[in-house]
């Protein structure tokens, strides 16, 4: 009856509450500063704002590595954390990526806020300018990185098309 995944989720959820820049006082990051075209996406990031909302029901961590690989940790389908990996590419301000299973990312325009403390990046989808996500630099909790389930386990999204 014990479900390891649940344990994983709990550890990770605790971690994100502790680490999510939205969850504590005084560390929410600044989003009103100047967004610049120059900067580096390499680092560890937490999704802290999406489409103007900071109270997000889901959690997303993104690690963009020097060698253009990425690790994505998210709990969006349930309270379980899920790990994805693959590669990304940056050409100018255009950020694209491909999951290890061959699926593509959406294509994003990236901006940098190097003055914010901690730093932030803003990703705007090129096919939907209303889809704007702000990520804040943070250390991804080890509980998340160590214990997330692999994406293959949760691909059945339980969405059924009507007719």
């Amino acid at each position, binding site marked *: 009856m*014990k479900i390891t995944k649940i344990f994983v989720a*709990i550890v990770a959820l605790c971690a994100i509450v502790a680490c999510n820049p939205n969850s504590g006082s005084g560390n929410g990051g600044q989003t009103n500063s100047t967004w610049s075209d120059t900067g580096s996406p390499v680092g560890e990031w937490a999704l802290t704002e999406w489409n103007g909302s900071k109270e997000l029901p*889901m959690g997303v961590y993104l690690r963009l590595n020097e060698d253009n690989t990425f690790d994505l940790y998210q709990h*969006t389908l*349930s309270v379980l954390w899920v790990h994805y990996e693959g590669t990304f590419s940056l050409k100018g301000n255009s950020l694209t990526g491909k*999951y290890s299973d061959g*699926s593509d*990312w*959406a294509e994003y325009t990236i901006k940098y806020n190097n003055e914010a403390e901690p730093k932030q990046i803003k990703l705007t989808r090129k096919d939907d300018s209303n889809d704007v996500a702000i990520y804040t630099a943070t250390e991804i909790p080890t509980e998340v990185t160590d214990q997330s389930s692999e994406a293959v386990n949760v691909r059945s999204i339980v969405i059924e098309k009507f*007719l």
Partner: protein
Amino acid sequence: MFSIKNFGLTALLATMLVGCITHDENLLVGESASASATKIINSPRSAVAGNLLIKFNEQATLAFEKSERKSDITRSGIEPLNHALRTIGATSIERLFPIDPRHEERARKAGLHYWYTVSFDSNEQLEKAAKSLAEVAEVEMVQYNTIFSYQPSKSVVVKEGPTTRLAVDKVNDPYFKDQWHYYNTGSGIHEKQVAGMDVNVKEAWLHCTGDPSIIVAVLDDGVDYTHDDLKANMWVNKGEIANNGIDDDGNGFVDDVHGYNFCTADGKISWKDSHGTHVAGTIAAVNNNGKGVCGIAGGDGSGNGVKIMSAQKFNADMEGDVAQTARAFQYAANNGAVIAQCSWGYNTAPNGQPAIISDKQFKDSDGATYSAILYFQSMKNSDVIDGGLVIFASGNDGLGQSGYPAGYRDFISVSATGCDGMPTYYTNYGPGVNISAPGGDMDRHGNGGGVLSTLPNNRYGYMQGTSMACPHVSGVAALGLAHAKKLGKKFSLEEFTSMLLLSTNNIDAHMASYEEIAMKYTGKMGTGSIDALRMIMNVEGVPCVNLPKGQLAMIDLKPYLIDQGRDITIIDNDTDSSLIISNADKEKLGITNGPRIFNGKLIITCEKAGHALINVQCVLGEKEAGSDDKMGGRASTKKLAIVVRDGHSANGGWM
């Protein structure tokens, strides 16, 4: 579980009384005999002699409060009442629920001030006195002050005196290894013991072990507050000085340092029996102190356990009456408790059948207790939750329905399982039962198959019963509230109750391979067996449902609400979408039609990206919700988050 004798019978007898009472025209003052008879809501059987509880109507209460009765109780301002008081030789008439100036306004709002207790010569015929008072037009109800009693609890002492330190995983309490009900390894107790048939505290403790702001009132016999494994987690009324005979904090009670003894009407808590002390240990025995046992929300040894308040409603003779019970609930509410832990209930009728079979019957036959519990539920004593949780044992009579008060639809009724994860032979099950927890089965699995907890005088021992299952749920609820406190989260009473009842494992699936057991108990043990880790998880957040933008989607909601197989019924909603999602969120997400919930599935089209919360109406534990006339499951609303975003990758990745 206490064997509370005779009180359950009262409702049936009261009903019979209404139909067969003999008229005595000489006694009539302001009411017809038949009308006055209906005011007597229960039976005189096992009632306190020379004492009755009465409830005035509002106008009479106001007149009575302004009267000069203090100098002469027969100058009540209500002449028919004066006449009745003289007739029965009344010696006092006092408020049933004492005045606590801090909460008097709330008490009046709840109608507690309508209730009075009338004392008179104990040689006076009780039934005659009841009739006299019932015939006063200003008196709405007369209730006999029934005595609850119970047999001494069976306990098996395993250790007395100091214990030695022994490291066991995260905690160093030496008997933790024997508390299978917290962490069941599948061996060491009985050959039929099954690993995982526990409340899963070890993993939950990684995240939270308690919080001293969460106060659990144990309405029982007294809790041994001097026990080495309890005293650090006993509630302390800081405004009160012990044994000085003064109500230092002005709450209406003298010397109530760790609670109050409502049987002796003083602050001297007593513990002749082990029941209250055992129950308290399950909730909050001090963890990681190198002594004895663990409590589910007993902290980590740094003083951060939840607190136990002893609201003693049973005396040294293992008796307590309605007035004492009602006052105990009021005291718990007025002095900070957020959970009322109640391992007791009415007994069955002499023929072994349930004495009370509906919510209406319960309300009608024990108005004083019902009013007091509603008052407790209405009190907001924590930032975390806006009311009080009331948790009862379902009963030990092996009946196919919950006992009462447990079975009332707004209270939580707990049934019992053994170390094999199966329903115990004694547990009540079926309508009215909300959830299950380990209660132990010493008859089948030996002494070690009981629940191990604290006993008075620094002892430890095993006991069994739904009385022992109940504090497991209280402990997990306290742990969930403590975790919510840590996270700064706030819940309504209804929200938190739903989360608690959905923090369960699938007991039906476990029973499935045992045909005889499955036939008897499937779907009848509430939502399943309580799981502390799931409680923590539910406090952490709501599940997210991802939706594509601009597409009609049909989502099976059940997997997001509960593991497959547990007993939950999602209510269809094809008519009023505002019950599912707010109009503001509909506009935000570009929803122009619906959404609907049909056949357990959410049918929705969102034209804009974003997120929102949706409400899913469901019934937990049964197919239909309970009502006044029919016992059933608990109606509940579960929240889910929907995240609408176009073009998610085929693999569900966010990017």
